[in-house]
């Protein structure tokens, strides 16, 4: 009996940790203060006005949302592109994604999945829990409420869809959602995305062989060449391809290794407009850094593509640039082309290297 070790509880340091306004532990060299820090009185007023408009648009508990979207889709789109007020973001995300309806149609299902079912992925999930947003106050405490919620959502999903199960990367999406809503709400939003409640289903990002990741990388590669031919040529010369820098953009929809204040703005638009925005943001990043990137040799290029400068990651610069990038028609054509060559492509991937 005495051999049995008591689970050591990590004692939180007595001194309060300094966090930014989203709850991430501050690093000394982190200077995003200008973007996320104190704001002027006029900015507060503007924010107040936005919140009032949004409240009206959503209605009590979301009662007016559908009506408003049907009547004025362009107003909704424009307001979303400006950023959803943070205090309404959780509710707005659920309305936009259609997850609210799923929740209402499936009472008790989440509880059933969490409490009574067992998942083959439980160990895999546990291994990653403390490695998901480890610098956020909600998730950094061992076995704390954040880690427990994250575990529950991921486990529930891995039972709900045993073909997908649990895949690394889902944790960052679930984590992002949990900062804005309850476990059960986050679970249904995950379902809405992966099963395609409003947009095309995303589950292909996580299924065996990651078929949708492969397709998106193919599409992004061609879009890059089409929009930025000079950079495309340079990439070809340096043997750079999107799998070297963009796979996590798609797998986690920018929720991994991008500044949080940018990630949530991308998510606002992503939920309403779909995966197109991920391509647009990716192209906008390349476009913004174009003149630097075309000069860099392979190694510096890979580094630069994974460490964009702070000014490029400013949502108020990057998002307008992304909105002005048109991709829909090319995306459709490239999808058809990918599907046509898909068999050949898949074989080429597993062929032993030279």
């Amino acid at each position, binding site marked *: 009996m005495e051999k049995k070790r008591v689970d050591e509880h990590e004692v939180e340091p007595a001194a309060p940790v300094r966090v930014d306004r989203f709850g991430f532990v501050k690093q000394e060299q982190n200077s995003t203060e200008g973007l996320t820090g104190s704001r002027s009185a006029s900015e507060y007023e503007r924010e107040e006005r936005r919140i009032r408009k949004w409240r009206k648009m959503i209605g009590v508990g979301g009662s007016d949302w559908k009506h408003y979207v049907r009547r004025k889709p362009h107003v909704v789109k424009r307001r979303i592109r400006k950023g959803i007020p943070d205090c309404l973001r959780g509710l707005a995300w659920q309305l936009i994604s259609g997850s609210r309806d799923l929740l209402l149609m499936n009472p008790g299902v989440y509880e059933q999945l969490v409490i009574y079912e067992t998942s083959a992925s439980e160990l*895999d999930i546990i291994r*990653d829990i403390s490695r998901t947003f480890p610098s956020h106050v909600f998730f*950094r405490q061992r076995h704390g409420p954040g880690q427990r919620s994250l575990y529950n959502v991921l486990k529930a999903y891995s039972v709900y869809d045993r073909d997908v199960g649990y895949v690394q*990367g889902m944790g960052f999406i679930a984590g992002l959602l949990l900062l804005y809503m309850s476990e059960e709400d986050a679970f249904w939003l995950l379902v809405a995305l992966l099963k395609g409640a409003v947009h095309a289903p995303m589950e292909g990002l996580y299924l065996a062989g990651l078929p949708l990741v492969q397709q998106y990388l193919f599409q992004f590669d061609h879009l890059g060449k089409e929009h930025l031919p000079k950079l495309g040529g340079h990439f070809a010369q340096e043997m750079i391809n999107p*799998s070297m820098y963009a796979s996590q953009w798609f797998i986690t929809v920018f929720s991994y290794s991008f500044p949080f204040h940018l990630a949530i703005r991308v998510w606002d638009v992503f939920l309403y407009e779909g995966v197109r925005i991920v391509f647009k943001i990716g192209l906008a990043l390349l476009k913004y850094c174009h003149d630097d990137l075309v000069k860099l040799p392979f190694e510096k290029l890979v580094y630069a593509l994974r460490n964009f400068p702070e000014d490029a990651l400013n949502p108020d610069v990057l998002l307008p640039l992304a909105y002005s990038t048109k991709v829909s028609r090319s995306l459709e054509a490239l999808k058809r082309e990918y599907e046509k060559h898909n068999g050949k492509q898949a074989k080429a991937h597993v062929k032993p290297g030279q």
Partner: protein
Amino acid sequence: MASSGNKSINAKLVLLGDVGAGKSSLVLRFVKGQFIEFQESTIGAAFFSQTVAVNDATVKFEIWDTAGQERYHSLAPMYYRGAAAAIIVYDITNPASFERAKKWVLELQAQGNTNMVMALAGNKADLLDSRKVAAEEAQTYAQENGLFFLETSAKAATNVNDIFYEIAKRLPRLQPASNPSGMVLMDRPADRVANSSCCS
């Protein structure tokens, strides 16, 4: 592939291994001299570079640190194809991760780059009390498969630089032409049956 300049070569190196074996931690220790207890999971892959000096030459490693989960397997060939070296990492406290390491070795052998230098790293060697994989077992396996083997600890900074340094020494272009065959045993996959051998 390892391409030679004057006295410096670039070598692509890939890290493979099970989830949580410590691939990213090994790289972080090697490249930045740091250790983070809760290292964020790697999604897709990460890239680093670091230079080491060996035998009057410098080797610049271009390091691809891959995601460990089985589901990401289909992305792995993009990172190991054309690599001059691979470090296959397992966790000495987790036998399943050792089995996974063996599968990676098989896969690398099957893809046919006979010049690839392969190292096996038994990581988390600081956790001696929880050891589940005997060093002798791994050593024997490594010898039989033409890998060189070290137990490492990214946390305690044990053998981390050494494993990269050993790889650098074994890269084909850095071997002096008159290298006595005495040390070939470990670094050349001579006993690989699938390939018709011609070298020794």
